[in-house]
């Protein structure tokens, strides 16, 4: 599907034809489309800001003079711990207010939460891409019994209720990771989240890749490579993999925001990141007790979460449209 256009475009560019006819590869066509897509540019700018803010979070918070962990007794009332002032005690010292009871700075917690969230979602997505491509290519290229076995194994994984199994395994698996030498607490919890998201996420991508490989295998350029006596690794890495990046890229850009939301949901349910380490889900879950009095506890992390997820989805949609040879724009 993805290569048809590039092959046609390339063949139409004969060396002695008129100059204005130029062969363009799929990526050049897609890039041309994306550059003209205002939604894509806009969401990319948002994502770039988010990424920079997450990477330089310690620097930014240092500049403002806040940090996500230190308690500030002067910002909360000594009896009951209610933040002083409206909007959760928002002031010049604490632009977005402070936490109830501890006086920890909300802005700093938000930025650090963003870091963890992006770290988990990105690493898990990379894991899905690796596993999904690996099993998808094996399944589609080797076919036969291997394909059937991998297929049934994927059916089995897909039959598991995902959120439930993540919840169910969390306690025991984090303990296991600690036994294996991963530091206790959030390090093992983060590792668990990445592993479990990756392990239960790859079958969807593997199915897509397998379908692509099955059809690529029958194409002339693969047949000619086989006829020339190319080895299987050469065919897979040189002929097939370069044609797979489009569907994989589209899937990955749409998976990443899902994982950001899932991580937040798990922390919300109490199996994700533990305090004092900040995370979106935990901030939202803590907000429940106080949002009647301090609604900003709910709306600040929630809005940031939605903006990040929407920006990723918009960008992913644009990439998919741009890479679709059938799309007319």
């Amino acid at each position: 599907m993805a290569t048809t256009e590039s092959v046609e475009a390339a063949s139409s560019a004969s060396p002695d034809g008129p100059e204005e006819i130029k062969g363009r590869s799929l990526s050049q066509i897609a890039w041309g489309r994306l550059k003209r897509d205002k939604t894509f540019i806009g969401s990319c700018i948002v994502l770039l800001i988010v990424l920079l803010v997450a990477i330089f979070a310690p620097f930014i918070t240092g500049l403002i003079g806040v940090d996500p962990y230190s308690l500030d007794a002067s910002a909360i009332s000594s009896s009951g711990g209610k933040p002083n002032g409206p909007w959760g005690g928002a002031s010049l010292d604490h632009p977005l207010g402070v936490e109830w009871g501890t006086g920890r700075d909300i802005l700093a917690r938000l930025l650090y939460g963003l870091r963890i969230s992006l770290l988990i979602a990105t690493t898990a997505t990379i894991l899905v891409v690796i596993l999904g491509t690996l099993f998808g290519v094996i399944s589609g290229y080797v076919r036969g019994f291997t394909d059937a076995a991998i297929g049934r194994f994927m059916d089995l994984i897909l039959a598991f209720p995902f959120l439930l199994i993540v919840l169910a395994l969390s306690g025991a698996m984090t303990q296991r990771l600690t036994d294996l030498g991963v530091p206790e607490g959030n390090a093992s919890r983060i590792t668990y989240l990445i592993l479990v998201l990756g392990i239960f996420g790859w079958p969807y991508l593997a199915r897509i890749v397998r379908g692509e490989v099955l059809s690529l295998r029958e194409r002339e350029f693969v047949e000619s490579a086989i006829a020339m006596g190319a080895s299987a690794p050469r065919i897979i890495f040189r002929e097939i993999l370069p044609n797979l990046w489009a569907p994989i890229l589209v899937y990955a850009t749409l998976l990443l925001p899902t994982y950001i939301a899932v991580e937040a949901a798990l922390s919300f349910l109490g199996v994700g990141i533990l305090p004092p380490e900040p995370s979106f889900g935990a901030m939202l879950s803590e907000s429940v007790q106080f949002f009647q009095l301090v609604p900003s506890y709910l709306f600040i992390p929630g809005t940031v979460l939605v903006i990040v997820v929407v920006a990723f989805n918009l960008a992913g949609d644009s990439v998919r449209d741009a890479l679709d040879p059938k799309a007319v724009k």
Partner: protein
Amino acid sequence: MAGYVVRRVLIMILLLLLLTMAVFFLFSLLPADVARLTCGKICTEQTLALNRARLGLDKSVFEQYWIFLTGLFFGRTFGEGPAAVVCDAPCLGYSFTRNEPVLDLIVDRLPPTIFLAMGAFVLFIIGGVGVGVYSALRRGRWQDKGVMGASLIGYSLPSFFIGLVAIYFIIIRWKLLPFPSYEPPWEDPVGFVQTMILPWVVLAILYAAFYTRLTRSQMLETLNEDYIRTARAKGLPERVVVRKHALRAGLTPIVTAAGLDLAGLLGGAIILETIFSLPGLGSLAVSAVLDPDLSILVGVTLVTATFIIVANLIVDLLYAVIDPRVRLS
């Protein structure tokens, strides 16, 4: 047709058996102490020892699985002597923290989950497919763009955030509804609707966004087909062209997604049940994670996975009904 159904049912039974095995071994081979995981929050050495004996943890995993399997068909007894508990067939396990067979607990918690799933399902199918068709028929106009933008945001909203926002505005700020407290509809019909209406709408918004996009893209594809032009040329009213020709041909992927989504929801909408304090399967699972009570988790996982596998079969059989071009063989 009959042969196909029989074969699919046999495969389904095999898959279910594999699934019980996968779930059982996944949980049994956990490096964590199973006795501890069935012991609840307050756990003494005696209870631990008792659970070890009751669950037969000294036996090999295969023996344990065999006992589990026979328990499923013929019932089983946990422990011996005065401490013995009898669990009638079909025995999914026994919760020592609540002193009840897991199946009874699940059956108890099933009604709220079923009501939530069915109500939301009706809303999001009618809403999602309806708006999707509307959007496709107005392709490129402002209505279409508005719907697409709204559905992308709806698709990106994390369920716990929008659930909490709904509680904040509708229950706390505007006091339009009382705080949710679940009563079965036969005891308090008004209270039932007042409690369910928000989770229904929230769930429906989240899912409808996906169905709007799916329906729209399916409709755009089928509306370009030659037979649509033929139908219009025959002088059929537009209503018939849209409903009988375009929508029906594009219905297959919608039915697939709907079947799997309904099955997933019947397994418990974990997050929304937690937020709206509905005593359903999802909140049973969450409390079992926090307790911890592994027996309940195994039971709920098995029941939910069974829903998904059965839904898969029903969807495949429905294809032939919806789309006469599909031949089952």
